[in-house]
């Protein structure tokens, strides 16, 4: 197998994880621990597929998926930001809700095919580049968009004022409140934006990658995205590295299984993202690294102006 093909396949596998992990990053940077991610991804996957097959347009389907993810996470935000319910339990409940709703909505569409496939890009000059051409510039546009988003979010967080406010929102919301910035409103905003991205990750699977709808089709990718965000210590560039590493393992596993020549049992390959995350989680808690790599200080804590 050629290295270009393996890398190209790896980027396709990485794309849904990358969208979901970037969405999760925005939400967690805002100080909300979002364990509903698997549910939002499934809602996105089913909405994308159903709307695409009803409307015949992938763009309409993908936009609908993003909207559905936003609505789903707005409901989650209502519970944990406004009502201040426990984020762990509510997140798990929304995860179950998303699985149930998607199975319910999608049952009439199981096994159906979409009318068309997403065309691949063929950018005139870039596609002819020797190595990068086939790996990056002959993919479908959503792959490229995911990687562009990494740069955008990275610059947003490190170079802009709203990005600074977002970082403060997860570290010390009372500071924002004291200078008159609406903490609750911003948490809603990033929950909704993040939910849209997570849902887009799900819709990429059902509309572009597979393209089909099967109950529970994300198969734990939401949890992997969650792991990737921790692995990356909440830094967008490392989120991309984590997602691509996952994509490589996934692409290698698929090929090794197809050719029947696996050096390592696929179960152990599948463990890698979780083991790596666990190791990073422990490593970054060591005193020297702690200051730079720790989670947002207010992650998982509801904001209550009267109890700060």
């Amino acid at each position, binding site marked *: 197998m050629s290295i270009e093909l393996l890398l190209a396949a790896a980027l396709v596998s990485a794309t849904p994880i990358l969208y979901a992990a970037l969405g999760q990053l925005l939400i967690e940077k805002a100080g909300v621990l979002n364990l509903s991610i698997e549910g939002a991804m499934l809602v996105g996957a089913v909405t994308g597929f159903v709307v695409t097959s009803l409307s015949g347009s992938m763009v309409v389907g993908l936009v609908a998926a993003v909207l559905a993810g936003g609505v789903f996470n707005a409901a989650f935000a209502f519970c944990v930001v406004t009502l201040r319910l426990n984020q*762990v339990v509510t997140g798990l409940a929304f995860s*179950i809700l998303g699985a*149930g709703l998607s199975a319910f909505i999608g049952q009439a569409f199981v096994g159906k095919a979409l009318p068309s496939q997403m065309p691949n890009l063929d950018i005139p000059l870039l596609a002819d580049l020797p190595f990068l051409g086939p790996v990056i510039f002959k993919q479908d546009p959503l792959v490229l968009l995911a990687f562009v988003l990494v740069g955008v979010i990275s610059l947003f967080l490190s170079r802009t004022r709203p990005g600074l406010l977002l970082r403060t929102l997860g570290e010390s919301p009372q500071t924002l409140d004291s200078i008159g910035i609406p903490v609750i409103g911003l948490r809603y905003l990033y929950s909704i934006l993040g939910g849209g991205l997570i849902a887009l990750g799900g819709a990429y699977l059902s509309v572009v990658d597979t393209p089909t709808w099967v109950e529970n089709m994300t198969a734990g990718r939401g949890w992997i995205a969650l792991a990737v965000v921790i692995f990356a210590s909440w830094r967008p560039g490392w989120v991309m590295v984590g997602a691509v590493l996952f994509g490589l393992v996934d692409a290698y596993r698929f090929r090794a299984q197809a050719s029947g020549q696996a050096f390592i049992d696929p179960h*152990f390959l599948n463990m890698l993202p979780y083991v790596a995350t666990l190791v990073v*989680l422990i490593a970054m808690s060591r005193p020297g690294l702690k200051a730079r790599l720790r989670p947002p200080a207010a992650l998982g804590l509801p904001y209550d102006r009267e109890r700060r």
Partner: protein
Amino acid sequence: MSLRLRFEPRLRSVGAGEIVLRIAFGVLLALAAGGVVIAMSGHDPVTAYQALFRGGFGSRMAFEGTLNKAVPIGLCALGIALASRAQLTNIGGEGQFYFGAFTATAIGLAMPEATPGWIAIPAVLMAGIIGGGLWALIAAVPKALFGVNEILSTLMLNYICMLWVGYLVRGPWADPMAYSFPYSPPIIDNAQMMPLVGSLHGGLLLLIVATIGVALVDRGSRWGYELRVSGDAPEAARYGGISASAVIISALCFSGAMAGLAGAVELSTTGRLQLGLSPGYGFMGILVAWLAGGRALPILFVSIFYAGLLNGGFSLQVSRVPSSISTILQALILIFVLAAVTLSQYRLRIYRSEAQS
């Protein structure tokens, strides 16, 4: 003039009776919301709820099945509730369940066929307790040493353990006689718990004993006190000579041991290690522990209620209602009850203020 709504904390805590009322109110609201979903799908909500109830509690056989399912949910929930006394959130029940089932299988396969039941069954259950505790230790030690967030580490350990079990039942432990089903060979006959009454097995007794045990730990034990002090006032605990590391390790390992015991019970009653052993009991344990407010006796009842919902979900399909309705209903009940219980700590006040001119 404008109206403004505000939630204000209540000054006195709400009595147990009012909490029960609010839970009931939450369940009713969830049933109403679920009914709307069922109606939208073109089915009759009343018929669906009747089928759900019949499947969970409607006959002796259904009720026995519900009680059997309540055992692993309740055991996981009890452990999770106890760890939450020390402000530890163990969401690794699922992994601890499977690691307990794995160690129990190892013992159950290794014992000689002639081992008498009074040795074999306790050995398998003990193996599960130890296995579950050990799996939790992997998260507990980094938490105690470096303060590694246990919510995230226990979550990662779930998937590692499930993949480990998947590897075993498809690889080294695959039963050649089970055709292509990913099962381990059956553990020895004497290590398998048989039904005591009807289809009811001895796990319910274990759950009742564990419930009483946790209640006793809460009521008057030194350990229970230490857990609560280090959870509610870590500084005071340190000043009083309570070791934070000892609390973290003992609480998380106990939590894991209960989930491991649940895994061993499920293994011992079904006989083979397989990935279908748990439909998410470890996660349900978290939800049940919260719904029950973390208290031992309510956990026993809430786990039976939850198991009924799960059991009833299977019989929905018989009445042609999609079984995903039961999943949606589980989530809705959780969210509504959680909201009802949390909001009971607040009261709603309406302010009227004159518009500024």
